[in-house]
């Protein structure tokens, strides 16, 4: 009623943006208060995709929960798998073999590419550049086929295990990936020629949705959104996990913290990811991919079928409540997912299921800064800013 009245007097107008709006990718909702074309106030509403992951974590085995992490950030499930098992492994106090660490890095970086590609496609699509969407999906399909050959699924990969990975890389992996990363820069250049100096793209993203670096820290922004404001912070560098300290790469930063800088940072991150993939491929060590401890990772199939101990170990890990049992305690582990800091805070009571699994999602905090970026801007900028943040509803609402 209130809104109706104000609309009649021509003062303020309330625009309900979403939840079903093409630019909100399904599940975000923003209520905008407008004065003509400019935004006075933006109020995001969320929870439309709330699924109860954290509650589910209290009922599933540590290994079963990996399946749930896939479905959280579905643009780059492999990074989630990685972040989660890393947290459990640190809680257990184990370290996986070198080869496994490298494989995980490979997969995480490839999925960073996949994530940024999808972001690029949809962000450009929302601003009217349809061909970029088709180009980036063409590249993504190549990645999909690599993922599918490695993990058995295109999207819901569930590739990592506590103490290792599902299986070793397939025989032609090296070739496939090398081919991909040699062709990829060309595809990226294509996009650059389409967007980077494009008048329309620049007009719609430059100076749009800016945030200063102090505000970004205050809001808890992470990932490309934080780096676009000029802060050189990357968890892969600051607290190297797995074997990231053995990789050389650069952390691209922006300076204005606007949508255009976020775009540039992500574009450059893709190049850096390619470098990391290259190095990881070149230096991929031999050896086992799982920890030797039979209480943590499944024994070989031949052992499970051929020896009684193997069978018992297999049975115990699979059996409800007998699987991986970290000691009583708690642990927080952060990884640099494509969107920023993805943290898992796990409280263990010593049993086979977590007592409390808290997911610290990057999108949740990035999305929170949206009103700050929007207010005072134009209503048409909403789409540009939203696109540049890459908010993933599955991770936002969990």
């Amino acid at each position, binding site marked *: 009623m209130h809104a109706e009245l104000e609309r009649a007097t021509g003062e303020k107008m309330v625009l309900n943006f979403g939840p079903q709006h093409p630019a909100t990718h399904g599940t975000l909702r923003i209520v905008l208060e407008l004065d003509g074309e400019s935004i006075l106030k933006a109020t995001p509403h969320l929870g439309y995709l709330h699924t109860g992951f954290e509650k589910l974590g209290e009922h599933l085995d540590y290994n079963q929960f990996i399946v749930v992490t896939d479905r959280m950030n579905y643009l780059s499930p492999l990074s989630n798998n990685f972040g989660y098992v890393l947290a459990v492994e640190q809680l257990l106090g184990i370290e996986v073999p070198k080869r496994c660490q490298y494989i995980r890095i490979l997969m995480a970086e490839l999925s960073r590419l996949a994530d940024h590609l999808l972001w690029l496609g949809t962000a450009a699509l929302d601003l009217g550049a349809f061909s970029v969407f088709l180009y980036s999906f063409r590249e993504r399909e190549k990645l999909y086929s690599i993922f599918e050959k490695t993990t058995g699924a295109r999207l819901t990969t569930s590739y990592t295990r506590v103490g290792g990975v599902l299986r070793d890389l397939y025989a032609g992996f090296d070739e496939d990936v090398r081919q991909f990363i040699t062709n990829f820069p060309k595809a990226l250049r294509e996009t650059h020629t389409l967007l980077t100096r494009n008048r329309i793209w620049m007009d719609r993203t430059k100076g749009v949705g800016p945030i200063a670096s102090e505000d970004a820290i205050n809001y*808890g922004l992470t990932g490309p959104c934080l780096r676009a404001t000029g802060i050189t912070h990357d968890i892969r560098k600051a607290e190297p996990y797995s074997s990231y300290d053995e990789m050389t790469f650069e952390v691209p930063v922006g300076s204005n913290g606007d949508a255009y800088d976020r775009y540039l940072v992500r574009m450059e991150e893709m190049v850096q990811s390619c470098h990391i993939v290259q190095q990881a491929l070149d230096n991929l060590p031999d050896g086992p991919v799982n920890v030797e401890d039979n209480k943590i990772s499944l024994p070989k199939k031949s052992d499970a079928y051929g020896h009684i101990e193997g069978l018992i170990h297999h049975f115990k890990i699979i059996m409800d409540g007998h699987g991986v049992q970290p000691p009583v305690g*708690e642990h927080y582990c952060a990884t640099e997912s494509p969107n920023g*800091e993805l943290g898992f*805070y796990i409280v263990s009571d010593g049993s086979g299921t977590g007592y409390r699994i808290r997911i610290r999602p990057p999108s949740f905090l990035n999305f929170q800064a949206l009103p700050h970026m929007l207010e005072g801007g134009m209503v048409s900028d909403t789409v540009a800013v939203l696109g540049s943040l890459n908010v993933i509803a599955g991770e936002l609402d969990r």
Partner: protein
Amino acid sequence: MNEEQSVAESPLVLQKLQENYADALLAHEETRDGVAVVVGKDDAYALLEYLKTEAELGYTYLVDVTAVDNSQLESELVKYDYARFMVVYHLYSYQGCCRLRVKVPVHERDLRVRSVTSLWRGANWLERETYDMFGIAFEGHPDLRRILMPDDFDGHPLRKDYPLRGRGERESFNFETQNV
């Protein structure tokens, strides 16, 4: 910050806290992921403010606010006078590249904690989520509403006494009054 240093002497943040907030600290620990401290509810705000503003520490980044329902974790319950909930803050310092966990026990009879939104704007939604999921009220919060669940939802899903499959909300939720 190499290993030997941190073994030899306790981290700077612990020294500082012990100097200034000795009474407030209920427990402290050096963990694999940084430092963890437990503080009483009344001192929590002041301590967090100190951590943020003290130039030598510089915990300017609030990573996460959440809570744990300890009602089925006897070992934790006995430590803090049977306080059912533990509000957990994770902080990070860009200067020292180190993490800190601050835990605040909260009794069920008095489910109130002072909000830190005045220190970190990022705390806004995190506290709302904690309120939604655990029913812990944050005093001084500008807009304490449910965030993930519908407004007319009853109960707090992440409490241990709330069943995984809900209490029939899946069938009986309100189609009409929801603001769509």
